[in-house]
């Protein structure tokens, strides 16, 4: 079964995370570099078409990834890189404070999102997760996974709390604890087996590894305990690896 409503909910959540526009008001900064290069597009591959000299005030129209669209009263708007932008001064004369996605931001990250795949009791699993770090050591996550077996498929939603005691050279081990629910349904070629939903709890461990910019690698293991109607509860091992980014 395809998790259309769940993906929809995830999309809506993502939409609400994007920043709200500031209307007609723009952020203004003063150039302190000898000159600021303006490119035609938000990337280093686009040509430089104009420069703004030191001391001039510029209006910041928008940001896309690490590029800022700016304009002054004369001339056309253009895009400038974060490396040049972060040396500018705001109107209070302070250097602008901007998150530029370096390793220091990795340890101080708040939001992260990732996709992983792996093994769930012999079946293939595809998982999407969204996490929020309250402190560098402590975070919470919600995840949605689809389990794709040969004769059945399942959908799992869960929430976890993560403890990240330390980070060393970009390697960040973690322990997690959480719970959720799993719905399992047999493929339509097999008759008689109806979909069943079971509550589950899990413990797990894993690690994050900082790759570059806003990216990290993630590996985790979870041991699920399914609370079944049968005489014995079921234990399931889950192994996954994937990539995540923080924002």
């Amino acid at each position, binding site marked *: 079964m395809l998790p259309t409503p769940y993906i929809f909910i995830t999309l809506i959540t993502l939409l609400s995370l994007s920043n709200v526009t500031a209307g007609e008001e723009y952020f203004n900064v003063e150039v302190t570099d000898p000159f600021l290069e303006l490119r035609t597009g938000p990337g280093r591959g*686009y040509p430089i078409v104009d420069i703004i000299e030191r001391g001039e005030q510029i209006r910041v129209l928008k940001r896309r990834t690490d590029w800022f669209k700016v304009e002054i009263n004369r001339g056309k708007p253009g895009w400038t890189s974060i490396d040049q932008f972060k040396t500018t001064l705001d109107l209070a004369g302070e250097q602008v404070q901007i998150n530029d996605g370096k390793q220091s931001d990795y340890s101080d990250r708040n939001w992260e999102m990732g*996709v992983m795949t792996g093994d769930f009791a012999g079946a293939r699993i595809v998982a999407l997760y969204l996490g929020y770090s309250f402190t560098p050591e402590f975070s919470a996550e919600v995840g949605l996974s689809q389990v794709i077996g040969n004769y059945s498929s399942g959908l799992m939603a869960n929430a976890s709390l993560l403890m990240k005691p330390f980070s060393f050279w970009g390697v960040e081990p973690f322990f997690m604890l959480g719970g959720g629910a799993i719905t399992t349904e047999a493929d339509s070629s097999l008759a008689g087996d109806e979909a069943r939903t079971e509550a589950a709890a899990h413990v797990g461990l894993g690690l994050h590894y900082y790759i570059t910019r806003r990216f990290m690698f993630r590996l985790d293991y979870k041991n699920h305990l399914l609370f079944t109607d049968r005489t014995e509860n079921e234990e399931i091992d889950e192994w996954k690896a994937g990539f995540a980014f923080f924002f």
Partner: protein
Amino acid sequence: MEGGIRIFLLKLTSSITVAMGLLLVPQSNIIAAGLSNSEDEQLVRPEITRRTLTVEAIDTENFEVELFGGVISVEDFGANPVYGVRLAYHITEDFFAVGTLGQTQTGESSYERISGSSAKLLTDEQRKLTYYNFSLGYNILPGEVFVGGKTAFTTQFYLIAGIGSTEFALGDYFTTSFGAGYRFLGSDWFALHVDVRDHIFEIGIYESSRETHNIEFTGGISLFF
């Protein structure tokens, strides 16, 4: 009697006011003289209430939502119209993450066509193919195109790969997808896309499983927000 007292009080008050005014004038001259010695010549400084907005006020536009349509060839089930939606998050100028949801109604397999109307392998509901995937895109060739002598538009050619699942026929199949696309930015906030993807999954309908390659060709329009 009362009127006389009132007039007296009024005169008294006004004379005190005048006296205080005369006393204060030389004092304010002294203050002004003191100030003129400092760098600032102005007695009254203009109070400008500058609105300093913080960096949070900068409108970040890293999300892109796209509606697309085109043709998908589902191996042995014909080429059929496909449509769907994509949501992208631009992580850096090079990389972007995309979630895609797509759907098509497939036709008859070659076996069904040869054996005639009596031998249907799948119901209409089973013939519907829905897929989702999570992909990572890489803007490998950023560029510009020129329309006429004065107008230039930015473009990006990107490579993309992802994992996901396809629901078709009798079950769900783990799917990997690879492809490339071209993004034409009409302005900062909207773009046109042309994409090609290969969706690869193993499927077995009353036979042993085999790997299928399902090529999709789509066009789309997207908005940045």
